[in-house]
């Protein structure tokens, strides 16, 4: 559990290790927060009928970290009661059905963390320099593009 001495943590990690929802969830829990909202992005085994056998993520790491810190700052400006924010994104090879990103936000009341998590994943997909390549069973690999 995160310390609760009036601190506000922005915990950001880009890693080639497998992500742990327990670790992320624990890192934002605090005794004054009633709500923790989380989002997990997982890699899918199909895209438009093609079988995906593997995925690879690549990042412009220092800028990705800087953009993630900007998202944290935006969240704190919009939802000032938000307590802790944790964002873990996996890089390198991610086996299908494993988790590529976990976002967790704690807040005293639930609506702030629920809205902040939605803002966080929407903005991450739009602004953080990370790329995903899908490797298919029987076609050329393809660099993906976030649509929404």
């Amino acid at each position: 559990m995160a310390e609760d001495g009036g601190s506000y943590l922005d915990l950001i990690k880009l890693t080639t290790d497998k992500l742990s929802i327990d670790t992320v969830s624990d890192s934002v829990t605090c005794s004054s927060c009633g709500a923790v909202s989380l989002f997990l992005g997982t890699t899918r085994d199909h895209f438009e009928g093609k079988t995906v056998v593997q995925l690879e993520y690549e990042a412009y790491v220092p800028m990705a970290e800087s953009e993630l810190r900007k998202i944290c700052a935006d969240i704190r400006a919009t939802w000032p009661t938000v307590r802790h924010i944790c964002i873990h994104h996996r890089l390198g090879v991610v086996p299908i059905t494993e988790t590529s990103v976990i976002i967790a936000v704690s807040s005293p009341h639930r609506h702030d963390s629920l809205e902040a998590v939605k803002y966080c994943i929407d903005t991450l997909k739009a602004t953080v320099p990370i790329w995903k390549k899908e490797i298919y069973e029987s076609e050329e690999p393809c660099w993906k593009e976030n649509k929404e």
Partner: protein
Amino acid sequence: NNTNDVSVLYFAKSAELAGVKSETLCVRADITSIQLWQELEKRHPKLLGVREQVVFAVRQEYVALGEQRLSLSEGDEVAVIPPLSGG
């Protein structure tokens, strides 16, 4: 005209097309972003394939391809940013 060495980083599809992940280029300090892109295309003609989709990140801030002058200093980092697909 004043010139400087800058680091150019390529990511994802642009790295595949350029055939390199990074290189050092000597460019005019007052080059515009579209002029810099044209320099990169001259060196790596296959980059034409992503021209309509990329932006730059100059000193880790996004800059669209256009008439904006980049005011590059010695050692600055410019990244070629294809469409994002994180998350």
